């Protein structure tokens, strides 16, 4: 037995490392056709150096361009305004943006509504720690149903739909051709919505498959697979029409993610296959891969595009981004079992997951160096670009949450944090701090193009940012401290178990405060979103401009 396990372990390791080297080699030989040129495919000829951010006002775009030029010590181009993109390219981009309007809107509008609902569920769940006898009159509102309803709403309703919507919007720009087959995605959005609505209703009514992240009954969950597959159709169709020589790294992430999710979900939901402890292992293989192979690639794809595009600056190192991609695929897919360290599962499994959790440092650093070096020297731009503010914060928190994840997987540390609120804080840093922040920024960028109108109240964007940033800060810090105290109390045999709960109570109250701020931010976001879409509020310049900012609002 031991021999087989050791052999398997060695094999895993060998193949992982070997695979990495093969890709690095292939990449250095140019087999994957990457070079500085590939990083520039998202720009029009001569566009590098020109900022783009439809989320701002004309004034803020001018300021952004000046900040961009100042960072390079260039004479500011804003005053003379040499429009660097040719009219043909601008027209092409306009057409690309037009082609993705309907599917992007279908997914993003649904996502925003699920976000509001999901955060209300989350907040009520959190408040129940302060008032355990509140809303206990009906089974529909009991803690054990609201909590999974919250998770499923924000993961499958908000995060997944926002990710798909942003992906669909980026595709024509990444491939420089009109989106083909957008109506498949529109149908996909309705099917997906139906899946989320029925799934969450089932959970609230007490019909649940009972495994975390997999609560939606499999009879309903099939809708998510069909909806996801339909959303992937435009990707395949549009790829055939692409006019770019290189596939930008965002396309890699998007294609892989759209491929991975249905497979993960089908394997995990296969009814009457998984049993006992094996089901627990599969459970966490799945749950962690929803983060690692679904949300993370969607979020990184958006970050890679929007950071470069807003700043008008190709990403720092294209090669690094490819290493980051393949290392993520290799290592992230195997880390899930660190969620059940200490469970009655084969020891070698835990070892594999801990090893791969440590190996995650490779893709994380690849992404971190790449994204942060692209922004480096341009921090002044954050002041003028609402998009960048969200996306850069998200990218920073990605680095943080990933390194925290590696630390958490180490058995020495895991012993304290396992079973505690610390894990919840970590999950929110990932899904909210990283993923949702990137999505907020992306949506602020693309919605003016979708609605052909500027955001009516720029101040609300700032208010949204500060509410959710401070809210998340309060949430994360309080729950992290509370979780650590909880874990230490639990490990101390001299203290009664109840102590481990009592010490967390003030921090759980603080968490509710943070959650309230975040929820408030979401209401403002949703209100602003609806005002934009329903053409309410002041109209300043009409259709949102793309291309170089125009002085004097011409």
């Amino acid at each position, binding site marked *: *037995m031991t021999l087989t396990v050791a052999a*398997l372990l060695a094999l895993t390791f060998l193949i992982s490392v070997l695979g990495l080297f093969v890709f690095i080699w292939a990449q250095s030989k140019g087999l994957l056709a990457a070079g500085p040129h590939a990083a520039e495919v998202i720009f029009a000829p001569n566009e590098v150096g020109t900022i783009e951010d439809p989320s701002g006002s004309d004034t803020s775009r001018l300021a952004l361009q000046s900040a961009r030029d100042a960072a390079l010590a260039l004479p500011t181009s804003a005053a003379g305004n040499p429009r660097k993109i040719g009219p043909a390219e601008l027209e092409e981009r306009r057409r690309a943006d037009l082609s993705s309007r309907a599917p992007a809107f279908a997914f993003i509008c649904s996502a925003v509504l699920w976000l509001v609902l999901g955060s209300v569920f989350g907040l009520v769940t959190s408040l129940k*720690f302060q008032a*355990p*006898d509140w809303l*206990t*009159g009906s089974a529909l509102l009991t*803690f*054990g*149903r609201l909590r*999974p309803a919250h998770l499923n709403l924000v993961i499958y309703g908000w995060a997944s739909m926002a990710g798909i919507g942003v992906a669909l919007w980026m595709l024509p720009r990444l491939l420089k051709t009109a989106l083909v087959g957008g109506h498949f995605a529109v149908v996909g959005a309705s099917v997906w919505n139906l899946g989320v609505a029925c799934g969450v209703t089932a959970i609230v009514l007490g019909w*649940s498959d*009972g495994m*975390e992240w997999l609560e939606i009954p499999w009879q309903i969950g099939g809708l998510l697979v069909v909806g996801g597959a339909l959303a992937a159709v435009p990707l395949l169709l549009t*790829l055939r029409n692409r006019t770019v020589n290189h*596939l930008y790294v965002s396309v890699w992430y998007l*294609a*892989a993610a759209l*491929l*991975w999710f249905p497979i993960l979900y089908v*394997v995990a939901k296969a009814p009457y296959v*998984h*049993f*006992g*402890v*094996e*089901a*627990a*292992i*599969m459970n966490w*293989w799945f749950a962690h*891969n929803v983060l690692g192979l679904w949300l993370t690639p969607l979020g990184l794809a958006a970050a890679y595009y929007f950071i470069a595009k807003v700043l008008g600056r190709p990403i720092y190192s294209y090669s690094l981004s490819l290493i980051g991609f*393949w290392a993520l*695929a290799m290592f992230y*897919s*195997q880390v*899930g*079992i660190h969620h059940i360290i*200490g*469970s*009655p*599962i*084969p*020891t070698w499994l835990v070892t*594999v997951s801990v090893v791969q959790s440590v190996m995650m440092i490779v893709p994380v650093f690849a992404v971190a160096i790449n994204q942060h070096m692209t922004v480096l020297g341009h921090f002044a731009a954050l002041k003028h670009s609402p998009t960048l503010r969200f996306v850069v914060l998200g990218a920073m928190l990605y680095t943080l949450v990933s390194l925290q994840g590696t630390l958490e997987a180490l058995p020495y540390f895991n*012993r304290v944090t*396992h*079973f*505690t*609120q610390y*894990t919840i804080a970590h999950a929110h840093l990932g899904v909210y701090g990283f993923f949702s922040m990137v999505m907020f920024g992306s949506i602020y960028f693309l919605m003016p193009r979708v609605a052909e109108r500027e955001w009516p109240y720029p101040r609300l964007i700032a208010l949204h940012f500060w509410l959710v940033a401070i809210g998340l800060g309060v949430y994360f810090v309080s729950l992290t401290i509370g979780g650590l105290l909880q874990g230490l109390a*639990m*490990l101390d*045999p001299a203290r009664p*178990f*109840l102590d*481990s*709960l*009592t010490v967390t*109570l003030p921090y759980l109250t603080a968490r509710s405060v943070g959650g309230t701020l975040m929820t408030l931010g979401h209401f403002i976001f949703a209100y602003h979103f609806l005002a934009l879409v329903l053409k309410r509020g002041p109209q300043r310049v009409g259709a949102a401009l793309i291309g170089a900012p125009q002085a004097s609002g011409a």
Partner: protein
Amino acid sequence: MHRMLTIVIGALIMLAFATLVLVVAPYRELEPVAAPVGLNPYTLAELRGRATYVAMGCIYCHSQQPRANSLGPDGLRGWGRASVAGDYVYDYPHLLGTARTGPDLFNIGARQPSVDWHLAHLYQPRSVSPGSVMPSYPFLFKVEKVAQPGEKRVTLPPQYAPTGGEVVATRDAVDLVAYLLALNHTYPVTGDSQETPR
């Protein structure tokens, strides 16, 4: 198009490999694990109770996996020996849990065998466990003027009892308690089922 193919094939290989290691290999390894001699299959009532446990989301606060002494004082708290894979062969879905806002329940039936305690605890946790933040489940109970013969009355401290009536357990509550009492894995594990597969 071949570059796209690289991505697709590469992505599939990575996922297939992960699935092989984390899903298929454990499946093969755990499939032959049999139930220990002392473990009985659930009765119908216990299964109904287990379904209520799932539907009420007890798993979000309670684990069912006492750990080895090297990982924490679970044994010292009276939560039982470290569980083994064989203990879970009748479990569908698994309820190992990843949170301990409340205590581990793998041996709650042995630790707290009183039906009356459990019913009172479900009706109002703070009536028997001061300081708890567990939700109360009044909807698993009925309040009747006088309990009918054959119905299970719930004994409560006076300050938690409703005025003008008696609290009676519904079948859901009785079954749930039957399941909780069945959570008793104090039998010794010997031979093959004792060792966690390595």
